[in-house]
C-alpha cells in the first residue's frame, strides 16, 4: 500500500462526498428546469420542485452519514472540522434551491419573459459556479496549486450574478404593483443567494489550502 494514499475509511468518505456534490448539482439542475418550464409554459414547474425536495432529502441523509464516518476517525483531526464545515456549506446550496422552488410554488411571482431569461441566466451561472466548486474540491486531493485559481473563478461568477441581480431588481421596481414587486424581489434575492452559498463553500476550500501552504 502506498503510505501517501488515503485509507479505506477516507476513500469511503470521499465517495460519499462526491455523491453529495452530485445530488446538490441535481438540485441546481432542477432549479434551472423549473425556471425554463415557467418561461416556456411547458409542463408543470412544481414537478422540478418535487425533484429538488427528493434530492435535497437524499443529500441530507448522505451528509449525516459523512458526519458519522468522519467522527469515527476518518482523516486527521485538524481536517475533520474543516471538511464538515465544507459539507455543511455545500449542503446549504441544496437547501436554498429547495427554498427557491417552494417560494415559487407558494407565491407564484409573475415575471416577464425578459426577467425570466435573466433568472435562468443567474441559475445557469450558479450551476457553473457549483461545477467549478466541485472541480476545486477534487483538486484539493490531487493538486493544491489549482484550487485557489478555481475559487477566484467562483468569485468572478458570483460578482457577475450580483450585477445581473442589481439590474433585475431595478427593472422589477419600475412596476407600480408594489405587492408583486416585493414577491419578485424576494424570489430574486433567494435565487441569487445560491451563488453566495457556493462562494462560502469555496472560501472554506481556500482556507484549507492556505492553512497548508508551505
Amino acid at each position, binding site marked *: 500500500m502506498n503510505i501517501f494514499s488515503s485509507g479505506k475509511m*477516507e476513500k469511503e468518505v470521499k465517495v460519499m462526498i462526491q455523491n453529495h456534490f452530485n445530488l446538490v448539482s441535481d438540485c441546481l439542475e432542477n432549479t434551472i428546469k423549473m425556471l425554463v418550464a415557467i418561461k416556456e409554459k411547458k409542463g408543470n414547474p412544481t414537478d422540478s420542485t418535487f425533484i429538488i425536495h427528493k434530492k435535497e432529502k437524499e443529500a441530507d441523509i448522505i451528509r449525516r452519514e459523512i458526519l458519522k464516518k468522519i467522527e469515527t476517525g476518518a482523516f*486527521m483531526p485538524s481536517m475533520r472540522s474543516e471538511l464538515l464545515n465544507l459539507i455543511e456549506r455545500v449542503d446549504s446550496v441544496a437547501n436554498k434551491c429547495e427554498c427557491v422552488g417552494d417560494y415559487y410554488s407558494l407565491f407564484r411571482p409573475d415575471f416577464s419573459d425578459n426577467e425570466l431569461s435573466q433568472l435562468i441566466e443567474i441559475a445557469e451561472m450558479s450551476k457553473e459556479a457549483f461545477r467549478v466548486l466541485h472541480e476545486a474540491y477534487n483538486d484539493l486531493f490531487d493538486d493544491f496549486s489549482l484550487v485557489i485559481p478555481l475559487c477566484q473563478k467562483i468569485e468572478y461568477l458570483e460578482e457577475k450574478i450580483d450585477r445581473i441581480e442589481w439590474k433585475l431588481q431595478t427593472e422589477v421596481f419600475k412596476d407600480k404593483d408594489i405587492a408583486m414587486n416585493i414577491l419578485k424581489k424576494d424570489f430574486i434575492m433567494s435565487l441569487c443567494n445560491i451563488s453566495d452559498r457556493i462562494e462560502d463553500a469555496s472560501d472554506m476550500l481556500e482556507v484549507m489550502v492556505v492553512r*497548508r501552504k508551505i
Partner: protein
Amino acid sequence: MFRIIPGALLGWGLGANDTSNIFGTAVSNNIIKFTHAAIITSVFVLIGSYLEGPKTFDTIGNLFGQLTKNDIFAIALGAALAVAFFTYLSLPISTSQAVVGSILGVGFINGQQLDPYRLIKIVLCWITTPIGAFIIAFILYTLLEWVFTKIKYGITFYNNFIKIGIIISGIFGAYALGANNVGNITGIYAVQMDMGLSPKLWALIGGVSITIGVITYSKKVMVTVGKKITQMVPLMTLVAVMAESITMIIYTQIGVPVSTSQAIVGAVAGVGAVKGFSNVNFKSLGRIGIGWIMTPISAGIVSILVKVIL
C-alpha cells in the same frame, strides 16, 4: 543508594518536561495518541541513552577533581530543585545548565581546581545551541519549501507526510534526548561514584528515570505546551523538532549535554524566520538569555545550601 534519588528526580523531571518538545503539538492536536507517543519516546530515549549517553559523561563528571558522595548528592539535589523552580515559573529550563551550576557551586565551596577548558566548552555550547538549531531549522524548512514547490500534491499526501514526518522526527527527537541529556542525570554518578557499574549501565539507569517521567507526568505538559504553540502549522512543528534533534545529536558527538528547550525555541525561531524575521519571537529568545544566567546561579546557590546543611 539514597544519594541516587535526586538524580532519579532530575531524570523524572526531564522526562516529564522535555518530551513535550517532541510530541507536544502532535498529541494536543490528536495527530498521535499520548499512549503511542509515550511508548515511542520511552523506547527511543532508552536506546539513545544506552548507545550514545556515555559520550557526555566525561564533560559533566570531570568539571572538577574528585568529589565526595555528599558533594554528588548536593549537586543532584540542587539541580533538581532549580529545575522544579524554573519549571514552575514557565521558563525554558535547561537541566544541563542546572547541573553545571550545581557542580560549580559545590566545587567552589570546596575550593577545588576548576577545569577551565571544559567550562568554556560547555558555555560555548549553551550559547550556540539555539543559534545552531535556528540555522538548521532555517535551512531544513527552506529546502522543504523548495521541494514542495517542485511537486504536485494534494491534501492526502500532505496529511500523510505530516503524520509520518511527526513520528520519524519524534523518534529521532526521543533518541537525541536520551543520547544527549542522560549525561545530566547519571553522568556525575558514573564518573565520580565507584559502584562497579559500567557507563552504559549508568546511562540506562538515567534513561529509565527519564522514561518514568514520560509515562507518569508528561501528558499534562504535552497538552499545555502543545496548545501554546498550536498557531504553528504542523509542518513547521515537524521541522522544528527535526532541527532540535539534529542539534542535540551534534552536541552529543562533541560530548556536551545541552538544553532541548532552548534548542526547540531556536528551531521554532528559525522556521519562523523563513517567512520573515517579523515572525520570530524575540521575547522567547530573550528568555533563553535569562535562563543561561539564572539557572546555573540558582542551582549553584541551592547546591551550596544543601552542601552546607550536610
